[in-house]
């Protein structure tokens, strides 16, 4: 049984994976955000957002405002010269599903399931020599309507869905109090670690798995980052404070991992608990008496109180040929973890097959606390053909989470069962991740064979969504090659992510044409291969698709 697998295309928008290792091609997308635009859209209403406690949210916002003002004052930037640096980009993306059996239903061969057009703007304002403000705004136009009922036909929001988001709206000040101190405040994406895309030490921002082709993307979050530079070590000490928890965005396909038809693929990694769940399902189904309903999934978001702030420290320095860093993070696992599963027999319902008893399930998801101690390094090895190498390892100490299955149907013999009891709260089976450490790591290398052939390979122990048990962590090989043709104008990129543990794969071939200035045309495909109960074979990992993409930056 595998967790709610993000469609691990193991790569971000096409160009990024190789770019990270110094390749020439670049993604056109530029991150960022404009808080003022959001205020305008919301009609200047308090932007507490759903689920946030208004009082706390306002207090936090005010605190940031005060801090920002203080920073500006301290930097003496009130009358400094302002230099602006603008970046625009456009991206249009169309995808065609080519599988039949990986969706909610099995009758949708060859259909378009994704059309997204993004217009982005990023601005950097340099105020004097020591102050920088960065804003980013991304407007997304979705070509696939959301019409479901008559009223939607008169609602432009359903006819032509649009969304705005932002990767950055922050202020940075250099030389605050000390020359070697820099402070950043606001909404941003902040990165730790050295591995390409799969960094277990990079827990500052939640991941963004909305787009299966942008694996490794992150969601911006409010934070403060203070960095004290140590020139004599070519290094730094950094502290990060994140006042409010923000979860990872899951792919649309993740819901398929929790449907009644996929009980064997529910995100329960513990073998005992998983078996109990499957037994429960088939016992009821075998009796022919139950009508299984899709589970009702409840997400228990951590409150935005002081007790749920997160943060960490990291030190980075140079030792010989190696860039080393060590880090500590205290926060929450940004993927949801099932804590309780309730399985109840409900009312009797008359169906075509006769009278059936509804079998209902409720799943409570939580975001467990974690502590992460990280170590990473990167180097270029002159004694080994100038090979590029890196390592990114994390020791993770999770909060103890009892994963419990409750049922009305008592099953004797289970160690967690409550003997002699009946009713709705009988604990049928349980597993618990004890508060012991578990480990994730990524180790990789890259090499350029010729001017037109580049390779990048990584070994991974543990994936982003995997949590809590050493035996719940799979091993993977992520590898890719870049082949350039036509004087670098055409790039063939072949990437694969192989789950060593269960044998499933993701294949991600792409042609990228970069013939004209600032313009990129892509044609590619993504295939999820493997048995239905494997990491990438299960439906939750997403559809098999071919896609075209156009990017322009200026």
């Amino acid at each position: 049984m595998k967790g709610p697998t993000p469609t691990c295309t193991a790569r971000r928008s096409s160009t990024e994976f190789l770019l990270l290792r110094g390749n020439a091609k670049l993604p056109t997308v530029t991150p960022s955000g404009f808080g003022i635009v959001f205020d305008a859209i919301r009609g200047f209403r308090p932007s507490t957002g759903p689920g946030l406690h208004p009082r706390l949210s306002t207090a936090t916002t005010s605190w940031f405002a005060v801090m920002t003002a203080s920073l500006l004052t301290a930097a003496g930037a009130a009358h400094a010269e302002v230099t602006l640096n603008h970046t625009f980009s456009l991206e249009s993306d169309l995808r065609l599903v080519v599988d039949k059996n990986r969706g909610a239903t099995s009758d949708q061969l060859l259909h378009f399931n994704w059309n997204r057009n993004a217009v982005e703007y990023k601005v950097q304002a340099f105020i004097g020599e020591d102050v920088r403000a960065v804003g980013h705004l991304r407007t997304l136009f979705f070509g696939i309507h959301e019409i479901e009922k008559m009223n939607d036909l008169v609602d432009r929001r359903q006819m032509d869905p649009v969304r705005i988001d932002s990767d950055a709206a922050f202020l940075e000040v250099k030389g605050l109090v000390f020359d070697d101190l820099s402070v950043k405040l606001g909404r941003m994406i902040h990165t730790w670690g050295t591995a390409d895309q799969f960094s277990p030490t990079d827990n500052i921002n939640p991941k963004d798995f909305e787009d299966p082709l942008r694996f490794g993307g992150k969601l911006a979050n409010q934070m403060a980052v203070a960095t004290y530079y140590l020139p004599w070590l070519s290094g730094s000490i950094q502290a990060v404070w994140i006042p409010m928890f923000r979860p990872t965005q899951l792919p649309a396909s993740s819901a398929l991992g929790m449907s009644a038809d996929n009980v064997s693929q529910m995100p329960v990694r513990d073998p005992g608990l998983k078996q109990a769940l499957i037994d429960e399902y088939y016992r009821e189904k075998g009796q022919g008496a139950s009508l299984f309903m899709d589970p009702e999934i409840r997400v228990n978001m951590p409150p935005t109180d002081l007790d749920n702030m997160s943060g960490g420290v990291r030190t980075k320095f140079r030792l010989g040929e190696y860039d080393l860093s060590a880090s500590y993070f205290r926060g929450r696992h940004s993927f949801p973890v099932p804590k309780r599963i309730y399985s109840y027999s409900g009312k009797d319902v008359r169906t075509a097959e006769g009278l059936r008893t509804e079998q209902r399930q409720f799943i409570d998801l939580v975001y467990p606390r974690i502590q992460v101690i990280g170590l990473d390094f990167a180097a270029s090895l002159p004694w080994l053909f100038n090979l590029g190498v890196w390592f990114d390892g994390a020791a993770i100490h999770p909060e103890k989470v009892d994963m419990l299955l409750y049922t009305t149907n008592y099953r004797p013999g289970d160690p967690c069962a409550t003997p002699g009891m009946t009713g709705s709260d009988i604990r049928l089976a349980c597993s618990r991740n004890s508060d012991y450490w578990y480990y994730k790591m990524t180790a990789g290398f890259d090499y350029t064979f010729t001017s037109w052939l580049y390779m990048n390979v990584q070994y991974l122990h543990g994936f982003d969504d995997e949590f809590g048990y050493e035996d719940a962590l799979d091993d993977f090989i992520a590898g890719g090659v870049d082949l350039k043709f036509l004087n670098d104008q055409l790039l063939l990129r072949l990437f694969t992510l192989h789950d060593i543990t269960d044998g499933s794969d993701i294949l991600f071939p792409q042609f990228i044409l970069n013939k004209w200035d600032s313009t990129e045309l892509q044609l590619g495909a993504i295939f999820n291969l493997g048995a239905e109960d494997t990491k990438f074979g299960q439906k939750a990992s997403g559809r098999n698709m071919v896609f075209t993409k156009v990017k322009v930056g200026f």
Partner: protein
Amino acid sequence: MILTTALALSTALVAAPAPITDDDAKTAGGILKKSDDVVSNYQDQEFHTRMTLKTGDGKVEKVIEMKIQQKGQNKRLVRFLKPGDVKGLSVLVLDPNTTYVYLPQFNKTRRVAAHTSKQSFMGTDFTEQEMDIIRYDEKFEPALVKKDGHEYVLWLTPKKGAEFSFAYIMMWIDEATGFQNKMEYYNAENVKLKTQSRGEVKTLDGVVTQTKVVMTDHIKKHSTEIEILSNKENQGLKDDLFTQRNLEWGK
């Protein structure tokens, strides 16, 4: 890495002239050394350069603009200004084995290994080897072929142990300025592979400078043109300019 060495070539253009004296001209080695001294005579530099890639019929394929700051022979900071898809990308070189790239899309600074020097750079006509040469007298044995008007013509063959994709270079050095005006690259069969021409001498910030180089690949029928748009020398650039902190700052 191509990114870094490409800039070495641009750097070679921004050099103060000095005439080849009779003493220098007594030997081919003296001529080449004096010319190399002219090319590498700076403490620090800051310049803005444009690379234009053209097809054989002169059609512009791509324009790349960079701002480059460098100090000594190793420390170098490059910021890409054009085209749009690389705008914001910055490269910091501390020594031949230590290069960092700042990727604005990820807000991440990345160590890149020295093997990337084998990669071609956005379709330009310069190879790593060609761009990596700052002082020719360190890698070639010169022989004086003739004096052609106001230019010395040298025949440069690789020194023992130095391996290049061409067999020899014919180089034209200006007697009055010491500038390297033209280089032709030949294979062992005496087929001309490429021609590099340098010219358009201008005074930028008080320094007389060659501001343009064109590398033409006669086999591919393709050319790359490099122009120096502005140049400042010996400003006393500080060491803290060449740090990861400044790399990420973005200005």
